[in-house]
């Protein structure tokens, strides 16, 4: 052993502060939890952003059905001049796509149309998870009392492998109606009605 080695070996060993490893174990766990939490938050955020910005693609989904059966329905229901019409259903191996239209023959300031549930002829009530929410707005243009009426259309998607596509259906659609006079002058809103549209089905025998 030469003098260099001796000098280096003679350097006194220092005692580390206690619990470095314990602190590292904790840090390791916190980081692991933080990483998992960040991934979950990221996935949720992406999902929310995607839901917020994605175009209404249920129509495209219905159009790209592999084995489509198109069932004409043509049922209309009305609430205070607000018309909701279910025009057809595209059936594709246990998944149904219902096309519906809405327009306002009245002068409500705004109407939000939210499909809520579907009840099949087998009596099964299916909460609608995928649908187009519609918003109807009537506009008054500045150069005169002119009401612009628009028709809006959307889709409802539901899954029911047991449903006979030609069988009866009923649709529950919630309407959130904002009457013009209440929007302009104030007042109580709601309760928001739920409109039920019944379709008796077709007997193909």
């Amino acid at each position: 052993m030469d003098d260099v080695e001796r000098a280096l070996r003679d350097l006194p060993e220092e005692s580390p502060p206690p619990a470095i490893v314990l602190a590292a174990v904790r840090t390791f766990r916190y980081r692991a939890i933080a990483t998992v939490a960040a991934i979950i938050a990221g996935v949720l955020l992406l999902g929310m952003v995607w839901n917020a910005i994605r175009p209404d693609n249920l129509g495209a989904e219905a159009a790209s059905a592999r084995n489509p059966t198109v069932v004409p329905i043509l049922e209309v229901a009305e609430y205070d001049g607000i018309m909701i019409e279910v025009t057809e259903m595209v059936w594709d191996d246990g998944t149904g796509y219902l096309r519906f239209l809405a327009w306002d023959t009245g002068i409500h300031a705004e109407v939000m149309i939210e499909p809520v549930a579907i009840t099949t002829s087998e009596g099964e009530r299916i909460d609608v998870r995928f649908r187009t929410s519609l918003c109807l707005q009537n506009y008054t243009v500045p150069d005169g009392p002119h009401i612009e009426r628009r028709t809006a259309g959307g889709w409802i998607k539901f899954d029911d492998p047991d449903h006979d596509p030609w069988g009866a259906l009923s649709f529950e659609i919630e309407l959130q109606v904002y009457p013009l006079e209440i929007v302009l002058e104030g007042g109580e809103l709601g309760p928001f009605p739920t409109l039920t549209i019944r379709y008796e089905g077709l007997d193909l025998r």
Partner: protein
Amino acid sequence: MEESISIETEWAQYQAPVYNFMRRMGLDQPLAADLAQETFVRALRGTHRYRGDASVRAWVLGIARNVFREWLRSGRREIPVAEVAERPVREPAGAEPVDVERALARLDADHREVLVLRFVLDLPSREVAAALGITDDAARQRVSRAKAEFREVWGP
């Protein structure tokens, strides 16, 4: 709880070598403790990467060395020689005494780390090589060059 106790017990034996490695590389006590902690966090994260071809001590010190290198590369600061505590070990006749730690601090990081691992922490050449990720021969050559450089800085 049992798991943390076992991990703690298992890894605690490497606490002193890792901390002393950081100190001898010239870090002050709080920073040495921080980087030692970071070393163990990485060791815990990378346990599955330990292949068993070197001792656990060499593997952990290899991680410590990488942590230290990253800290150096991050450019946060250079270790000023003046910060190193003066503890003269040898006073050559007719020359200014140069403290061993100050002499170590004047070496470049490659030479400093190899001397710390080989002589201060007393790792065999084989483990030094494993910690540095180089061959045994390369480790021996580096030790030899580092000693020569150290002698120049430290000796008369």
